[in-house]
Protein backbone atom coordinates (compact mmCIF):
# COMPACT_ATOMS: atom_id res chain seq x y z
CA UNK A 1 0.00 0.00 0.00
CA UNK A 2 1.18 3.54 -0.73
CA UNK A 3 -0.04 7.04 -1.45
CA UNK A 4 -1.64 5.88 -4.70
CA UNK A 5 -3.72 3.04 -3.25
CA UNK A 6 -6.58 5.05 -1.83
CA UNK A 7 -7.04 7.44 -4.79
CA UNK A 8 -6.81 4.53 -7.23
CA UNK A 9 -9.41 2.48 -5.33
CA UNK A 10 -11.65 5.46 -5.21
CA UNK A 11 -11.42 6.14 -8.95
CA UNK A 12 -12.12 2.47 -9.63
CA UNK A 13 -15.12 2.41 -7.33
CA UNK A 14 -16.68 5.28 -9.31
CA UNK A 15 -15.86 3.82 -12.69
CA UNK A 16 -18.37 5.68 -14.84
CA UNK A 17 -17.64 9.06 -13.31
CA UNK A 18 -13.89 8.54 -13.56
CA UNK A 19 -14.19 7.35 -17.16
CA UNK A 20 -16.23 10.38 -18.20
CA UNK A 21 -13.77 12.76 -16.56
CA UNK A 22 -10.84 10.99 -18.20
CA UNK A 23 -12.65 11.22 -21.52
CA UNK A 24 -13.18 14.95 -21.01
CA UNK A 25 -9.49 15.51 -20.35
CA UNK A 26 -8.61 13.26 -23.28
CA UNK A 27 -10.74 15.37 -25.62
CA UNK A 28 -9.02 18.53 -24.37
CA UNK A 29 -5.54 17.07 -24.69
CA UNK A 30 -6.39 15.48 -28.02
CA UNK A 31 -7.68 18.68 -29.53
CA UNK A 32 -4.70 20.59 -28.18
CA UNK A 33 -2.33 18.14 -29.81
CA UNK A 34 -4.28 17.94 -33.05
CA UNK A 35 -4.79 21.69 -33.40
CA UNK A 36 -1.28 22.64 -32.39
CA UNK A 37 0.19 19.83 -34.44
CA UNK A 38 -1.71 20.75 -37.55
CA UNK A 39 -0.88 24.44 -37.17
CA UNK A 40 2.81 23.79 -36.71
CA UNK A 41 2.68 21.31 -39.57
CA UNK A 42 1.11 23.99 -41.71
CA UNK A 43 3.79 26.54 -40.83
CA UNK A 44 6.49 24.02 -41.38
CA UNK A 45 5.07 22.97 -44.71
CA UNK A 46 4.91 26.60 -45.86
CA UNK A 47 8.44 27.30 -44.73
CA UNK A 48 9.86 24.24 -46.41
CA UNK A 49 7.74 24.72 -49.49
CA UNK A 50 9.07 28.18 -50.17
CA UNK A 51 12.54 27.16 -49.01
CA UNK A 52 13.28 24.05 -51.00
CA UNK A 53 12.76 25.46 -54.48
CA UNK A 54 16.17 27.13 -54.39
CA UNK A 55 15.21 30.71 -53.42
CA UNK A 56 16.92 32.67 -50.66
CA UNK A 57 14.23 35.28 -50.08
CA UNK A 58 10.53 35.53 -50.71
CA UNK A 59 9.00 38.84 -51.63
CA UNK A 60 5.29 39.20 -50.97
CA UNK A 61 2.81 42.00 -50.94
CA UNK A 62 3.11 43.80 -47.60
CA UNK A 63 0.58 42.63 -45.04
CA UNK A 64 -0.72 39.89 -47.24
CA UNK A 65 -3.15 37.59 -45.55
CA UNK A 66 -2.11 34.32 -47.15
CA UNK A 67 0.19 32.90 -49.78
CA UNK A 68 -2.50 33.11 -52.40
CA UNK A 69 -3.82 36.59 -51.69
CA UNK A 70 -0.54 38.36 -52.38
CA UNK A 71 -0.25 40.31 -55.61
CA UNK A 72 2.81 41.93 -57.18
CA UNK A 73 3.19 43.48 -60.63
CA UNK A 74 5.63 42.02 -63.16
CA UNK A 75 7.15 45.46 -63.56
CA UNK A 76 8.17 45.30 -59.86
CA UNK A 77 9.66 41.84 -60.42
CA UNK A 78 11.98 43.34 -63.04
CA UNK A 79 13.14 46.03 -60.65
CA UNK A 80 13.85 43.37 -57.97
CA UNK A 81 15.78 41.39 -60.53
CA UNK A 82 17.97 44.42 -61.14
CA UNK A 83 19.07 44.77 -57.48
CA UNK A 84 22.83 44.16 -57.21
CA UNK A 85 23.71 40.79 -55.70
CA UNK A 86 20.51 39.20 -57.02
CA UNK A 87 21.07 36.34 -59.44
CA UNK A 88 17.44 36.09 -60.35
CA UNK A 89 14.03 37.27 -59.15
CA UNK A 90 11.36 34.83 -60.30
CA UNK A 91 7.75 36.01 -60.09
CA UNK A 92 5.41 33.09 -59.47
CA UNK A 93 1.72 32.52 -59.16
CA UNK A 94 0.45 30.48 -56.29
CA UNK A 95 -3.20 29.69 -55.90
CA UNK A 96 -5.61 27.14 -54.57
CA UNK A 97 -7.68 25.54 -57.28
CA UNK A 98 -10.36 22.93 -57.45
CA UNK A 99 -9.33 19.86 -59.40
CA UNK A 100 -11.58 17.27 -61.01
CA UNK A 101 -14.53 18.68 -59.07
CA UNK A 102 -13.44 16.94 -55.89
CA UNK A 103 -10.31 18.21 -54.19
CA UNK A 104 -8.51 21.49 -53.60
CA UNK A 105 -4.82 21.65 -54.30
CA UNK A 106 -2.15 24.29 -54.57
CA UNK A 107 -1.26 25.28 -58.10
CA UNK A 108 1.99 27.11 -58.85
CA UNK A 109 3.01 28.89 -62.05
CA UNK A 110 6.75 29.32 -62.63
CA UNK A 111 8.31 31.56 -65.27
CA UNK A 112 10.07 29.85 -68.19
CA UNK A 113 13.79 29.30 -67.72
CA UNK A 114 13.84 30.30 -64.04
CA UNK A 115 16.05 28.64 -61.42
CA UNK A 116 12.91 27.14 -59.88
CA UNK A 117 12.65 24.54 -62.59
CA UNK A 118 16.10 23.27 -61.63
CA UNK A 119 14.74 22.26 -58.21
CA UNK A 120 12.16 20.05 -59.84
CA UNK A 121 13.12 16.37 -59.49
CA UNK A 122 11.03 14.39 -61.93
CA UNK A 123 10.08 10.83 -61.13
CA UNK A 124 8.28 10.36 -64.42
CA UNK A 125 7.71 12.37 -67.59
CA UNK A 126 9.01 15.82 -68.41
CA UNK A 127 8.55 19.46 -67.42
CA UNK A 128 5.47 21.18 -68.93
CA UNK A 129 5.94 22.56 -72.41
CA UNK A 130 2.50 23.82 -73.38
CA UNK A 131 0.25 26.24 -71.48
CA UNK A 132 -2.13 23.43 -70.53
CA UNK A 133 0.41 21.04 -69.06
CA UNK A 134 1.32 20.40 -65.40
CA UNK A 135 3.77 18.52 -63.25
CA UNK A 136 2.05 17.00 -60.23
CA UNK A 137 3.72 16.50 -56.87
CA UNK A 138 3.75 12.83 -56.03
CA UNK A 139 1.30 13.16 -53.13
CA UNK A 140 -1.26 14.92 -55.31
CA UNK A 141 -0.76 12.42 -58.11
CA UNK A 142 -1.30 9.52 -55.75
CA UNK A 143 -4.30 11.10 -54.08
CA UNK A 144 -5.96 11.81 -57.40
CA UNK A 145 -4.80 8.60 -59.05
CA UNK A 146 -3.05 10.38 -61.94
CA UNK A 147 -0.10 9.27 -64.06
CA UNK A 148 1.75 10.88 -66.93
CA UNK A 149 -0.52 11.46 -69.93
CA UNK A 150 -3.73 11.64 -67.89
CA UNK A 151 -6.03 14.60 -68.09
CA UNK A 152 -6.79 16.70 -65.00
CA UNK A 153 -9.36 19.48 -64.65
CA UNK A 154 -7.88 22.52 -62.95
CA UNK A 155 -10.35 25.30 -62.35
CA UNK A 156 -12.62 23.51 -64.87
CA UNK A 157 -9.95 23.67 -67.60
CA UNK A 158 -8.38 20.45 -68.87
CA UNK A 159 -4.63 20.08 -68.33
CA UNK A 160 -2.37 17.20 -69.37
CA UNK A 161 -0.11 15.62 -66.75
CA UNK A 162 3.38 16.01 -68.23
CA UNK A 163 5.34 14.67 -65.27
CA UNK A 164 5.35 13.58 -61.65
CA UNK A 165 7.84 15.23 -59.27
CA UNK A 166 9.28 14.11 -55.95
CA UNK A 167 10.04 17.24 -53.92
CA UNK A 168 11.39 17.13 -50.36
CA UNK A 169 8.75 19.16 -48.63
CA UNK A 170 5.23 18.07 -47.86
CA UNK A 171 4.05 21.35 -49.28
CA UNK A 172 5.58 20.84 -52.69
CA UNK A 173 4.49 17.22 -52.75
CA UNK A 174 1.01 18.66 -52.83
CA UNK A 175 1.51 21.27 -55.51
CA UNK A 176 0.79 21.10 -59.19
CA UNK A 177 3.27 23.19 -61.20
CA UNK A 178 2.53 24.72 -64.58
CA UNK A 179 4.09 27.47 -66.74
CA UNK A 180 3.44 31.00 -65.49
CA UNK A 181 1.72 32.46 -68.57
CA UNK A 182 -0.88 29.67 -68.65
CA UNK A 183 -1.84 30.21 -65.04
CA UNK A 184 -1.90 34.00 -65.33
CA UNK A 185 -4.49 33.52 -68.03
CA UNK A 186 -6.36 30.79 -66.12
CA UNK A 187 -6.70 32.93 -63.01
CA UNK A 188 -7.29 36.13 -64.98
CA UNK A 189 -4.39 38.14 -63.63
CA UNK A 190 -2.14 39.14 -66.53
CA UNK A 191 1.17 40.88 -65.79
CA UNK A 192 0.80 40.08 -62.10
CA UNK A 193 2.29 37.42 -59.83
CA UNK A 194 1.65 36.29 -56.26
CA UNK A 195 5.16 36.10 -54.89
CA UNK A 196 8.71 36.59 -56.00
CA UNK A 197 11.35 33.98 -55.26
CA UNK A 198 14.72 35.70 -55.12
CA UNK A 199 17.96 33.82 -55.60
CA UNK A 200 21.20 35.54 -54.64
CA UNK A 201 24.37 35.40 -56.66
CA UNK A 202 26.69 32.62 -55.42
CA UNK A 203 28.63 32.48 -53.16
CA UNK A 204 26.33 33.98 -50.49
CA UNK A 205 27.71 35.29 -47.23
CA UNK A 206 25.40 36.26 -44.40
CA UNK A 207 26.35 39.94 -44.16
CA UNK A 208 26.09 40.46 -47.87
CA UNK A 209 22.71 38.68 -47.86
CA UNK A 210 21.40 41.05 -45.20
CA UNK A 211 22.47 43.99 -47.36
CA UNK A 212 20.71 42.61 -50.41
CA UNK A 213 17.60 41.98 -48.33
CA UNK A 214 17.53 45.62 -47.29
CA UNK A 215 18.08 46.72 -50.87
CA UNK A 216 15.21 44.52 -52.04
CA UNK A 217 12.92 45.96 -49.38
CA UNK A 218 13.75 49.52 -50.43
CA UNK A 219 12.62 48.88 -53.99
CA UNK A 220 8.98 49.49 -53.09
CA UNK A 221 6.96 50.28 -49.96
CA UNK A 222 4.26 47.77 -50.94
CA UNK A 223 6.47 44.72 -50.53
CA UNK A 224 7.83 42.64 -47.70
CA UNK A 225 11.04 40.58 -47.93
CA UNK A 226 11.60 37.57 -45.73
CA UNK A 227 13.52 34.34 -45.66
CA UNK A 228 11.44 31.21 -45.88
CA UNK A 229 11.03 30.48 -42.14
CA UNK A 230 10.11 34.08 -41.34
CA UNK A 231 7.78 34.10 -44.25
CA UNK A 232 5.65 31.29 -42.86
CA UNK A 233 5.50 32.89 -39.45
CA UNK A 234 4.75 36.41 -40.60
CA UNK A 235 1.81 35.62 -42.74
CA UNK A 236 -1.33 36.97 -41.13
CA UNK A 237 -3.17 33.86 -42.17
CA UNK A 238 -0.80 31.70 -40.17
CA UNK A 239 -0.98 34.12 -37.27
CA UNK A 240 -4.77 33.90 -37.30
CA UNK A 241 -4.71 30.13 -37.31
CA UNK A 242 -2.19 30.26 -34.50
CA UNK A 243 -4.37 32.58 -32.43
CA UNK A 244 -7.47 30.47 -32.99
CA UNK A 245 -5.55 27.35 -32.04
CA UNK A 246 -4.24 28.92 -28.85
CA UNK A 247 -7.65 30.25 -27.88
CA UNK A 248 -9.43 26.96 -28.49
CA UNK A 249 -6.73 25.04 -26.65
CA UNK A 250 -6.89 27.37 -23.69
CA UNK A 251 -10.65 27.03 -23.46
CA UNK A 252 -10.43 23.26 -23.66
CA UNK A 253 -7.78 23.15 -20.95
CA UNK A 254 -9.82 25.45 -18.71
CA UNK A 255 -12.97 23.44 -19.28
CA UNK A 256 -11.22 20.22 -18.40
CA UNK A 257 -9.77 21.68 -15.23
CA UNK A 258 -13.28 22.67 -14.17
CA UNK A 259 -14.36 19.14 -14.96
CA UNK A 260 -11.59 17.72 -12.78
CA UNK A 261 -12.42 20.14 -9.97
CA UNK A 262 -16.06 19.12 -10.10
CA UNK A 263 -15.26 15.41 -10.09
CA UNK A 264 -12.90 15.79 -7.16
CA UNK A 265 -15.40 17.88 -5.27
CA UNK A 266 -18.07 15.22 -5.68
CA UNK A 267 -15.62 12.53 -4.75
CA UNK A 268 -14.40 14.23 -1.58
CA UNK A 269 -17.81 15.29 -0.37
CA UNK A 270 -18.95 11.66 -0.56
CA UNK A 271 -15.99 10.61 1.54
CA UNK A 272 -15.94 13.20 4.32
CA UNK A 273 -15.88 10.46 6.95
CA UNK A 274 -12.99 8.70 5.28
CA UNK A 275 -10.88 11.84 5.56
CA UNK A 276 -12.01 12.18 9.18
CA UNK A 277 -10.77 8.64 9.82
CA UNK A 278 -7.41 9.43 8.24
CA UNK A 279 -7.12 12.52 10.41
CA UNK A 280 -8.05 10.52 13.51
CA UNK A 281 -5.38 7.89 12.88
CA UNK A 282 -2.80 10.62 12.46
CA UNK A 283 -2.64 11.75 8.85
CA UNK A 284 -1.69 15.42 8.86
CA UNK A 285 -3.88 17.88 6.92
CA UNK A 286 -1.10 18.29 4.34
CA UNK A 287 -0.99 14.56 3.64
CA UNK A 288 -4.74 14.37 3.37
CA UNK A 289 -4.73 17.22 0.88
CA UNK A 290 -1.97 15.48 -1.04
CA UNK A 291 -4.29 12.51 -1.41
CA UNK A 292 -6.82 14.70 -3.21
CA UNK A 293 -4.12 16.16 -5.44
CA UNK A 294 -2.91 12.67 -6.31
CA UNK A 295 -6.44 11.72 -7.29
CA UNK A 296 -6.63 14.76 -9.59
CA UNK A 297 -3.25 14.03 -11.12
CA UNK A 298 -4.26 10.41 -11.71
CA UNK A 299 -7.29 11.55 -13.68
CA UNK A 300 -5.08 13.88 -15.68
CA UNK A 301 -2.42 11.27 -16.41
CA UNK A 302 -5.03 8.82 -17.68
CA UNK A 303 -6.71 11.59 -19.67
CA UNK A 304 -3.40 12.62 -21.23
CA UNK A 305 -2.55 9.10 -22.33
CA UNK A 306 -5.88 8.70 -24.08
CA UNK A 307 -5.68 12.28 -25.30
CA UNK A 308 -2.38 11.76 -27.11
CA UNK A 309 -3.88 8.79 -28.92
CA UNK A 310 -7.01 10.76 -29.71
CA UNK A 311 -5.00 13.74 -30.99
CA UNK A 312 -2.87 11.63 -33.31
CA UNK A 313 -5.97 9.90 -34.64
CA UNK A 314 -7.67 13.27 -35.22
CA UNK A 315 -4.66 14.63 -37.12
CA UNK A 316 -4.57 11.62 -39.38
CA UNK A 317 -8.28 11.91 -40.00
CA UNK A 318 -8.04 15.57 -40.97
CA UNK A 319 -5.11 15.01 -43.30
CA UNK A 320 -6.77 11.97 -44.75
CA UNK A 321 -9.84 14.03 -45.64
CA UNK A 322 -8.55 15.78 -48.74
CA UNK A 323 -10.47 19.01 -48.11
CA UNK A 324 -7.37 20.53 -46.59
CA UNK A 325 -5.46 21.09 -49.83
CA UNK A 326 -3.07 18.38 -48.70
CA UNK A 327 -1.40 20.91 -46.46
CA UNK A 328 -2.50 19.61 -43.11
CA UNK A 329 -0.04 16.90 -42.36
CA UNK A 330 0.10 15.05 -39.03
CA UNK A 331 2.91 16.66 -37.15
CA UNK A 332 3.53 15.10 -33.76
CA UNK A 333 6.57 16.44 -32.01
CA UNK A 334 7.92 15.80 -28.55
CA UNK A 335 7.59 19.53 -27.93
CA UNK A 336 3.84 19.55 -28.58
CA UNK A 337 3.22 16.50 -26.41
CA UNK A 338 5.39 18.02 -23.68
CA UNK A 339 3.46 21.26 -23.92
CA UNK A 340 0.14 19.43 -23.62
CA UNK A 341 1.39 17.39 -20.68
CA UNK A 342 2.69 20.48 -18.94
CA UNK A 343 -0.73 22.05 -19.15
CA UNK A 344 -2.46 18.94 -17.93
CA UNK A 345 -0.03 18.42 -15.08
CA UNK A 346 -0.79 21.98 -14.06
CA UNK A 347 -4.55 21.61 -14.15
CA UNK A 348 -4.59 18.48 -11.96
CA UNK A 349 -3.12 20.10 -8.87
CA UNK A 350 -4.85 23.39 -9.67
CA UNK A 351 -8.25 21.75 -9.87
CA UNK A 352 -7.53 19.88 -6.65
CA UNK A 353 -6.82 23.04 -4.66
CA UNK A 354 -10.36 23.84 -3.61
CA UNK A 355 -11.52 20.24 -3.01
CA UNK A 356 -8.35 19.59 -1.00
CA UNK A 357 -8.95 22.66 1.08
CA UNK A 358 -12.55 21.56 1.63
CA UNK A 359 -11.59 18.19 3.13
CA UNK A 360 -9.40 19.70 5.81
CA UNK A 361 -11.59 22.68 6.63
CA UNK A 362 -13.68 21.03 9.35
CA UNK A 363 -12.05 19.58 12.46
CA UNK A 364 -11.59 15.78 12.41
CA UNK A 365 -14.40 15.26 14.94
CA UNK A 366 -16.89 16.91 12.61
CA UNK A 367 -15.57 15.02 9.59
CA UNK A 368 -16.00 11.74 11.46
CA UNK A 369 -19.65 12.58 11.99
CA UNK A 370 -19.92 13.24 8.25
CA UNK A 371 -20.30 17.00 8.64
CA UNK A 372 -18.90 18.88 5.65
Amino acid sequence: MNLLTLPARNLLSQRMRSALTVLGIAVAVGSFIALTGLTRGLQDGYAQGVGDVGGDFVVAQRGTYSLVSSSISEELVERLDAVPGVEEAAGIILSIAEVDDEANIFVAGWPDGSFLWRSLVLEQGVAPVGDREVVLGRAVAEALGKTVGDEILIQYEPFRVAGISVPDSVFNQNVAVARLPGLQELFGRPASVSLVQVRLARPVDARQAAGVKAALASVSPVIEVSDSAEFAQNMDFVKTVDAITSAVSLVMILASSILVANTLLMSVSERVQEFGILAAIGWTPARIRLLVVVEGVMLCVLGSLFGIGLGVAAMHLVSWLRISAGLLEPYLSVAIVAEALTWVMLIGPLAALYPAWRVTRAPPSAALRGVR
Partner: protein
Amino acid sequence: MPHLVELRNCRRDYDNGRIVALDDVSFTVARGDFIAITGPSGSGKSTLLDILCGLEEPSAGEVLYDGRPVRGRTAWARLRAARIGFVFQSFHLIPALTVAENIEIAMLWQGLPARGRASRVTELLDRLGLGDRRAQHPMQLSGGERQRVAVARALANRPELIVADEPTGSLDSRSGADIINLLEDLRRTAAITIVLVTHDRSIAERCARRVELVDGRIAFDSAREPVPEAHP
Protein backbone atom coordinates in the same frame (compact mmCIF):
# COMPACT_ATOMS: atom_id res chain seq x y z
CA MET B 1 6.65 12.98 35.78
CA PRO B 2 3.96 15.07 34.04
CA HIS B 3 0.48 13.77 33.49
CA LEU B 4 -0.03 11.99 30.21
CA VAL B 5 -2.85 14.38 29.29
CA GLU B 6 -4.07 17.43 31.12
CA LEU B 7 -7.10 19.56 30.27
CA ARG B 8 -6.92 23.01 31.84
CA ASN B 9 -10.22 24.87 32.11
CA CYS B 10 -11.44 23.56 28.80
CA ARG B 11 -14.64 24.91 27.37
CA ARG B 12 -16.27 23.92 24.14
CA ASP B 13 -19.32 25.74 22.89
CA TYR B 14 -21.23 25.72 19.64
CA ASP B 15 -23.62 28.04 17.93
CA ASN B 16 -21.98 31.23 19.31
CA GLY B 17 -22.05 30.00 22.87
CA ARG B 18 -25.72 28.97 22.83
CA ILE B 19 -24.76 25.29 23.18
CA VAL B 20 -22.15 24.51 25.81
CA ALA B 21 -20.86 20.97 25.31
CA LEU B 22 -18.06 21.23 27.81
CA ASP B 23 -18.03 23.83 30.57
CA ASP B 24 -14.71 24.76 32.17
CA VAL B 25 -13.47 21.25 32.64
CA SER B 26 -10.11 20.47 34.22
CA PHE B 27 -9.13 16.88 34.02
CA THR B 28 -5.99 14.78 34.01
CA VAL B 29 -5.13 11.36 32.71
CA ALA B 30 -2.26 9.64 34.48
CA ARG B 31 -0.06 6.99 32.92
CA GLY B 32 -1.57 3.57 33.45
CA ASP B 33 -5.05 4.95 34.07
CA PHE B 34 -8.05 2.87 33.05
CA ILE B 35 -10.83 5.42 32.96
CA ALA B 36 -14.53 4.97 32.23
CA ILE B 37 -16.38 8.16 31.34
CA THR B 38 -20.12 7.90 31.88
CA GLY B 39 -23.02 10.31 31.81
CA PRO B 40 -26.31 10.97 30.11
CA SER B 41 -26.49 11.36 26.36
CA GLY B 42 -25.48 14.88 25.38
CA SER B 43 -23.52 15.46 28.57
CA GLY B 44 -20.28 16.09 26.66
CA LYS B 45 -18.50 12.72 26.86
CA SER B 46 -17.53 12.59 23.19
CA THR B 47 -16.52 16.24 23.26
CA LEU B 48 -14.23 15.58 26.20
CA LEU B 49 -12.66 12.61 24.44
CA ASP B 50 -12.22 14.56 21.20
CA ILE B 51 -10.51 17.43 22.98
CA LEU B 52 -8.34 14.98 24.86
CA CYS B 53 -6.67 13.93 21.64
CA GLY B 54 -7.07 16.96 19.40
CA LEU B 55 -9.92 15.79 17.18
CA GLU B 56 -11.56 18.97 18.38
CA GLU B 57 -9.98 22.12 19.75
CA PRO B 58 -11.37 23.75 22.88
CA SER B 59 -13.02 27.16 22.55
CA ALA B 60 -11.14 28.18 25.69
CA GLY B 61 -8.53 26.56 27.89
CA GLU B 62 -5.64 24.38 26.86
CA VAL B 63 -4.56 20.80 26.55
CA LEU B 64 -1.15 19.56 27.65
CA TYR B 65 0.15 16.26 26.40
CA ASP B 66 3.04 14.83 28.34
CA GLY B 67 3.45 18.22 30.00
CA ARG B 68 3.57 20.29 26.83
CA PRO B 69 0.73 22.34 25.35
CA VAL B 70 -0.33 21.06 21.91
CA ARG B 71 -1.80 23.42 19.35
CA GLY B 72 -2.78 23.04 15.74
CA ARG B 73 -4.13 20.18 13.66
CA THR B 74 -0.77 19.09 12.32
CA ALA B 75 0.86 18.82 15.73
CA TRP B 76 -2.11 16.83 17.01
CA ALA B 77 -2.10 14.56 13.96
CA ARG B 78 1.58 13.73 14.46
CA LEU B 79 0.96 13.03 18.11
CA ARG B 80 -2.00 10.77 17.39
CA ALA B 81 -0.11 8.87 14.72
CA ALA B 82 2.78 8.08 17.02
CA ARG B 83 1.22 7.81 20.47
CA ILE B 84 -2.59 7.55 20.48
CA GLY B 85 -4.90 4.80 19.22
CA PHE B 86 -8.62 5.19 18.53
CA VAL B 87 -11.67 3.00 18.74
CA PHE B 88 -15.11 4.34 17.84
CA GLN B 89 -18.63 3.10 18.27
CA SER B 90 -19.22 2.89 14.54
CA PHE B 91 -15.81 1.27 13.81
CA HIS B 92 -14.82 3.87 11.21
CA LEU B 93 -13.05 1.54 8.83
CA ILE B 94 -12.43 2.60 5.24
CA PRO B 95 -14.76 0.54 3.03
CA ALA B 96 -12.54 0.67 -0.09
CA LEU B 97 -9.62 -0.94 1.75
CA THR B 98 -9.14 -4.53 2.86
CA VAL B 99 -8.78 -5.50 6.51
CA ALA B 100 -4.98 -5.60 6.20
CA GLU B 101 -4.90 -2.23 4.40
CA ASN B 102 -7.14 -0.64 7.02
CA ILE B 103 -4.49 -1.47 9.56
CA GLU B 104 -1.51 -0.66 7.40
CA ILE B 105 -2.80 2.80 6.49
CA ALA B 106 -2.19 3.93 10.07
CA MET B 107 1.51 3.06 9.67
CA LEU B 108 2.07 4.66 6.27
CA TRP B 109 3.98 7.70 7.49
CA GLN B 110 5.78 6.20 10.46
CA GLY B 111 9.04 5.48 8.69
CA LEU B 112 8.47 1.74 8.58
CA PRO B 113 9.33 0.04 5.26
CA ALA B 114 6.61 -1.95 3.46
CA ARG B 115 7.99 -5.25 4.68
CA GLY B 116 8.00 -4.10 8.30
CA ARG B 117 4.44 -2.86 7.96
CA ALA B 118 3.31 -6.16 6.47
CA SER B 119 4.77 -8.22 9.27
CA ARG B 120 3.26 -5.91 11.89
CA VAL B 121 -0.15 -6.29 10.21
CA THR B 122 0.20 -10.08 10.25
CA GLU B 123 1.22 -10.02 13.89
CA LEU B 124 -1.80 -7.91 14.86
CA LEU B 125 -4.25 -9.95 12.82
CA ASP B 126 -3.02 -13.17 14.39
CA ARG B 127 -3.19 -11.69 17.86
CA LEU B 128 -6.79 -10.55 17.32
CA GLY B 129 -7.90 -13.77 15.67
CA LEU B 130 -8.42 -12.14 12.29
CA GLY B 131 -5.75 -14.05 10.38
CA ASP B 132 -8.18 -15.45 7.81
CA ARG B 133 -9.85 -12.09 7.22
CA ARG B 134 -6.92 -10.05 5.96
CA ALA B 135 -7.99 -9.82 2.32
CA GLN B 136 -11.67 -9.19 3.07
CA HIS B 137 -13.39 -5.83 3.10
CA PRO B 138 -15.09 -4.37 6.19
CA MET B 139 -18.53 -5.00 4.66
CA GLN B 140 -17.87 -8.74 4.77
CA LEU B 141 -17.21 -8.81 8.51
CA SER B 142 -19.47 -9.00 11.57
CA GLY B 143 -19.65 -6.06 13.97
CA GLY B 144 -17.40 -7.76 16.49
CA GLU B 145 -14.82 -8.52 13.81
CA ARG B 146 -14.93 -4.96 12.53
CA GLN B 147 -14.30 -3.62 16.00
CA ARG B 148 -11.36 -5.99 16.37
CA VAL B 149 -9.92 -4.63 13.12
CA ALA B 150 -10.34 -1.13 14.56
CA VAL B 151 -8.50 -2.21 17.72
CA ALA B 152 -5.73 -3.72 15.57
CA ARG B 153 -5.46 -0.41 13.71
CA ALA B 154 -5.35 1.48 17.01
CA LEU B 155 -2.48 -0.74 18.14
CA ALA B 156 -0.54 -0.52 14.88
CA ASN B 157 1.95 2.12 16.00
CA ARG B 158 2.28 0.76 19.57
CA PRO B 159 0.42 3.66 21.24
CA GLU B 160 0.74 4.63 24.90
CA LEU B 161 -2.89 5.77 25.04
CA ILE B 162 -6.06 4.26 23.64
CA VAL B 163 -9.18 6.36 23.46
CA ALA B 164 -12.47 4.55 22.87
CA ASP B 165 -15.84 6.26 22.41
CA GLU B 166 -18.56 3.72 23.23
CA PRO B 167 -16.56 0.86 21.68
CA THR B 168 -19.25 -1.69 22.55
CA GLY B 169 -22.21 0.52 21.68
CA SER B 170 -22.87 -1.20 18.36
CA LEU B 171 -22.03 -4.74 19.47
CA ASP B 172 -23.99 -7.60 21.02
CA SER B 173 -23.05 -8.30 24.62
CA ARG B 174 -20.66 -11.16 23.81
CA SER B 175 -18.66 -9.23 21.20
CA GLY B 176 -18.75 -6.23 23.52
CA ALA B 177 -17.30 -8.28 26.36
CA ASP B 178 -14.59 -9.58 23.98
CA ILE B 179 -13.53 -6.05 23.14
CA ILE B 180 -13.43 -4.97 26.77
CA ASN B 181 -11.42 -8.08 27.70
CA LEU B 182 -9.04 -7.21 24.91
CA LEU B 183 -8.59 -3.64 26.14
CA GLU B 184 -8.09 -4.79 29.71
CA ASP B 185 -5.53 -7.30 28.52
CA LEU B 186 -3.66 -4.58 26.62
CA ARG B 187 -3.55 -2.37 29.68
CA ARG B 188 -2.09 -5.18 31.74
CA THR B 189 0.37 -6.64 29.26
CA ALA B 190 1.38 -3.58 27.23
CA ALA B 191 0.93 -0.90 29.91
CA ILE B 192 -1.38 1.09 27.67
CA THR B 193 -3.41 3.88 29.25
CA ILE B 194 -7.08 3.59 28.35
CA VAL B 195 -9.87 6.16 28.39
CA LEU B 196 -13.27 4.90 27.31
CA VAL B 197 -16.78 6.23 27.17
CA THR B 198 -19.53 3.78 28.01
CA HIS B 199 -23.19 3.58 28.89
CA ASP B 200 -22.76 0.10 30.28
CA ARG B 201 -22.57 0.00 34.09
CA SER B 202 -20.91 -3.39 34.17
CA ILE B 203 -18.15 -2.15 31.88
CA ALA B 204 -17.70 1.03 33.92
CA GLU B 205 -17.35 -1.02 37.07
CA ARG B 206 -14.43 -2.95 35.58
CA CYS B 207 -12.48 0.26 35.12
CA ALA B 208 -10.12 1.47 37.83
CA ARG B 209 -11.32 5.07 37.62
CA ARG B 210 -14.77 6.38 36.87
CA VAL B 211 -15.67 9.88 35.75
CA GLU B 212 -19.23 11.07 35.32
CA LEU B 213 -20.24 14.02 33.21
CA VAL B 214 -23.46 15.96 33.60
CA ASP B 215 -24.28 18.98 31.46
CA GLY B 216 -20.72 19.43 30.33
CA ARG B 217 -19.23 19.36 33.81
CA ILE B 218 -17.49 16.65 35.77
CA ALA B 219 -20.05 15.61 38.39
CA PHE B 220 -17.95 12.85 39.82
CA ASP B 221 -14.40 11.54 39.56
CA SER B 222 -13.40 8.49 41.57
CA ALA B 223 -9.81 9.72 41.61
CA ARG B 224 -10.83 12.82 43.54
CA GLU B 225 -13.50 11.52 45.85
CA PRO B 226 -13.93 8.20 47.54
CA VAL B 227 -16.08 5.84 45.50
CA PRO B 228 -19.65 6.19 46.85
CA GLU B 229 -20.09 2.45 47.30
CA ALA B 230 -16.96 2.35 49.41
CA HIS B 231 -18.65 4.42 52.12
CA PRO B 232 -20.15 2.41 54.93
